[in-house]
């Protein structure tokens, strides 16, 4: 059956659930594109035949193939676009540098899109309200208290807070830090918010 590969692509994304990025399925995409090429060529020759020899019984087949072509196009676009949305969400979650495991699942063009997106976003954020701009990827949750208790999950090295104090973020150490400095690190999985 036509379009089966294309549907399979959509299912694959659907199965992964929100926020996860499966490996870029180049192989299936190539197969769908090949199927489209074949359908198009068959249609071309049938159209010629229908025109020159007046075979009007070919027209329903041509229409059917064209629908399959449109469906394939739509499925591929949906697959690619949905992946972009997932990649976009990753920018907000991890900051501008993605973990290698995720980068491994992206194709070169997606990487390019991501870099461009990053640039647009940075330009936008710099331009907010004049001088230095505003990082809107921070302050994701309404603040409840100024300082929070955090535990280090990984060795992260030295970390400077606003008043100039430098602390050492060592694995399994616990600290009482200003919330606005930790948000990013918590999202990156370096720190964990300890809720007692």
């Amino acid at each position, binding site marked *: 059956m036509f379009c089966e590969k294309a549907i399979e692509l959509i299912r694959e994304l659907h199965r992964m659930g929100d926020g996860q990025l499966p490996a870029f399925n180049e192989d299936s*995409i190539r197969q769908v*594109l090949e199927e*489209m*090429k074949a359908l*198009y060529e068959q249609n071309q020759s049938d159209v010629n035949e229908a025109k020159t020899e007046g075979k009007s019984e070919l027209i329903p087949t041509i229409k059917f193939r064209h629908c399959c*072509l*449109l469906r394939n*196009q*739509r499925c*591929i*676009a949906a697959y*690619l*676009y949905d992946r*972009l949305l997932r990649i*976009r969400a990753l920018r907000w979650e991890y900051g501008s540098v993605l973990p290698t495991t995720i980068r491994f699942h992206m*194709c070169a*063009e*997606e990487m*390019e*899109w991501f870099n*461009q*997106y990053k640039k*647009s*976003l940075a*330009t*936008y954020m710099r*331009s*907010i*309200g*004049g*001088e230095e701009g*505003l*990082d*809107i990827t*921070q*302050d994701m*949750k*309404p*603040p409840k*208290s*100024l300082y929070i208790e955090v535990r280090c999950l990984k060795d992260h090295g030295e970390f400077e807070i606003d*008043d100039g104090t430098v602390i050492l973020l060592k694995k399994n150490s616990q600290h009482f830090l200003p*919330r*606005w400095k930790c948000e990013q690190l918590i999202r990156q999985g370096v720190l964990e918010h300890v809720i007692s």
Partner: protein
Amino acid sequence: MADGLSEGSDLSAGEEGQEDVLTPAELITKLEEAWLNEKFSPELLENKSELVECVMEQLTHMEENLQRVRKGDVKASVHRMEIDRIRFVLSSYLRFRLQKIEKFFPHVLEKEKSRADGDPSFLSPEEFAFAKEYLANTEVYLRAVALKHMPPNLQNIDMLKAVPEPCLDSFVFLRVKERQENILVEPETDEQREYVVDLDEGSQHLMRYRTIAPLVSSGAVQLI
């Protein structure tokens, strides 16, 4: 919330003086209203760049004042908290806008294109630049990965059709700030007829966004 702002000196909205002078408390109230409206309306609302600029100025001002406070002063942490809260509202407001721009980018740009010269723009210049880049970037990407390998008659995708439009028929909660008379409510089903309602000041309603969209932009109702 406004108490924490008392330290900020008087601040006027809009440097060109085309607007009334706002106290910091009024400024923050305005920001909160804009934030809630943007959060609950299905479509992108008019931009409020001036408001954003004023709040940013106010934040910088408060940060500066905070530098002068002695270390360990209780006042400092109260103000710090206040700054954090305002910054959260501001960031959240801009995030909602950006999300809508990304979600509806072809429609947002189309609306901007068809806007008459005198009308206020929905996008701030920065947002407009962002939306254009986003569209171009996405188109280039789709072309490079798939579309250019497709048969010649299928190499274009009409973004306006492919990307969903904002659903203006979704229902929103609202509170009335200025009394409105004779609001025409369109029927929801075929059996119903259209009817008119009066909205009393202070009353709360659940209505279709499309019906009250003009009232949201004029500030007569507040989405909640």
